[in-house]
């Protein structure tokens, strides 16, 4: 078990290194001189030279990479070109916005979709099952940003029940904050419930036809007991992996939903930085998001042996 944990953690390190190289390398492909970009169109040649040296661009690429990684490891993600603010606090502030919505949204989505998918599978081909399939396929097919816009149109504008745009952090009171995140969270729940329900259904069907389920029935266990004690753990394992992927990728900025509801989240930060060609922010955000993704998936992997003890063997 300890060996399994250590192996998994160790295997995440090369991935993180490669990710950092990819992020660093990607930004190196940008046409033009980063120093000149940084100073804008009005810079004099001398200034550009000075900037190049200040940014370390006169050094070999490998050295530049190592310096950058060294800085990142000490928490120095550089400064924004546009505002001159430090990048890391920008990222962390935006992350807290994205994370609060995503964690609540995915949690509720899983709470609805996993039982729905499993029950559908248990009554495979019943009208209820077909209903779950239809609803989840439809939800899967509606783009989240359009769904968000429609919710906004109906509940925000036409009915006027909820605020249309903006964000209030939870530090300024629970209720005001809640009111502002209801629509984004609902959007997230609806758009993520589809794939989770489908996965839960597929993996339950796979488990339900295994012999140990028949064995449990032959022992005289009731259907709910068989489902909970024998099917759930085994069927939930692949679903958990999917939830990990969803969680990881959403934490990295639900850019489209944040755009719809003008939330100052990570995704919006990245997209705005791309518009503004604010490369230190782009670089920092991409690295941060990828790292979160790797860590969330690692965490899911570490949970896996509790569901399926064979993996840690």
């Amino acid at each position, binding site marked *: 078990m300890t060996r399994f944990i250590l192996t998994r953690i160790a295997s995440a390190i090369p991935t993180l290194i490669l990710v950092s190289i990819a992020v660093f390398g990607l930004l190196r492909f940008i046409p033009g001189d980063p120093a000149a970009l940084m100073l804008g169109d009005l810079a004099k040649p001398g200034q550009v030279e000075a900037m190049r040296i200040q940014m370390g661009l006169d050094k070999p690429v490998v050295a530049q990479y190592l310096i950058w990684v060294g800085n990142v490891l000490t928490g120095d993600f550089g400064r924004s070109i546009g505002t001159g603010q430090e990048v890391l606090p920008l990222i962390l502030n935006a992350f807290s916005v994205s994370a609060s919505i995503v964690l609540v949204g995915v949690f509720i989505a899983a709470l609805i979709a996993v039982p729905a998918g499993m029950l559908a599978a248990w009554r495979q081909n019943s009208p209820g099952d077909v209903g779950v399939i239809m609803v989840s396929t439809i939800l899967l097919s509606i*783009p989240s940003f359009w769904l968000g816009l429609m919710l906004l149109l109906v509940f925000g504008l036409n009915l006027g029940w909820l605020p249309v745009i903006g964000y209030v952090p939870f530090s300024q009171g629970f209720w005001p904050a809640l009111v502002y995140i209801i629509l984004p969270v609902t959007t997230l729940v609806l758009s993520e419930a589809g794939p989770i329900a489908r996965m839960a259904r597929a993996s339950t069907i796979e488990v339900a036809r295994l012999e140990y389920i028949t064995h449990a029935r032959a022992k005289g266990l009731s259907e709910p007991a068989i489902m909970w004690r024998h099917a759930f753990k085994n069927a939930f394992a692949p679903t958990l992996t999917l939830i990990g992927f969803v969680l990881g*990728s959403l934490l990295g900025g639900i850019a*489209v939903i944040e755009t719809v509801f003008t939330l100052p989240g990570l995704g919006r930060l990245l997209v705005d930085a791309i518009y503004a060609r604010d490369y230190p922010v782009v670089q920092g955000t991409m690295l941060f998001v990828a790292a979160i993704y790797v860590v969330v998936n690692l965490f899911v992997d570490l949970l896996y042996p509790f569901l399926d003890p064979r993996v840690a063997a």
Partner: protein
Amino acid sequence: MIATALEQSRLKFNAVFGITVTTLLIATAVIGPWLVGYDPLKLDLPARLAGPSARHLLGADEFGRDILSRLVNGARTSAWIAFATVLFALITGTALGVAAGFLRGWTDRILMMINDAFLAFPGLLLALGIMAVIGASRDGIVLALGLAYMPIVVRVVRAAVLSIREREYVEASRVMGNSEFITMARHVLPNCLAPIIVLATTMFGWVILSESALSFLGLGVPPPAPSWGSMLSTARPYISQAPHLIVLPGLCISITLLGVNMLGDAVRDWLDPKL
């Protein structure tokens, strides 16, 4: 397992609906603009934000451009990008996946290490990063989304090659005296086709969704070219005045995706009767 009547009718419905929608999308993309015969870029300022009328069957947008014509041309954009992207990801991904699964050893290890690093970027992030570098353009999206989806193809193809090459009929081919190359071409690759086809169908839907999301963020098809995602994006400020500007493009995306997803389910049921 013998399918019940309900399941069979559902599968049939999936296939019929999926094929109909996909055919409609392709037909619209190919001949739609010619049928509508209205320039999607032509400005008609007096008709700004107008609702449906004889002149503009589905109304006009914030510059008075004809919505129907823009939707039809948007279908062309989406379908073209989706086809090109899927093709790009499939060709590059299959080549790399086969190379990794066939050569194994260090080639495999290095390819997979790089591939896993690509896969460590969630969702749209990699495409966003690539768009940041190359700038928004139609071909740029194909490249960015193609590169973002390629690692998934590599994984699927490699896994299929590795599993098929251990089958006994492949060993029988080796014992027969067939060269590794012939064995690969005659026995391994043809049997890898099913998962590749299933993936390609599924990917088609992902790409349409991703392209519209990128365009919605303003990092996709650059204006004024019509695309469903960018139509939603530019119409957003007018949501209360002209909701049809929001409703129509979204409906187009959703129905297209529903059709493609159902087609994907049907293809999976057909090729992989296990699930």
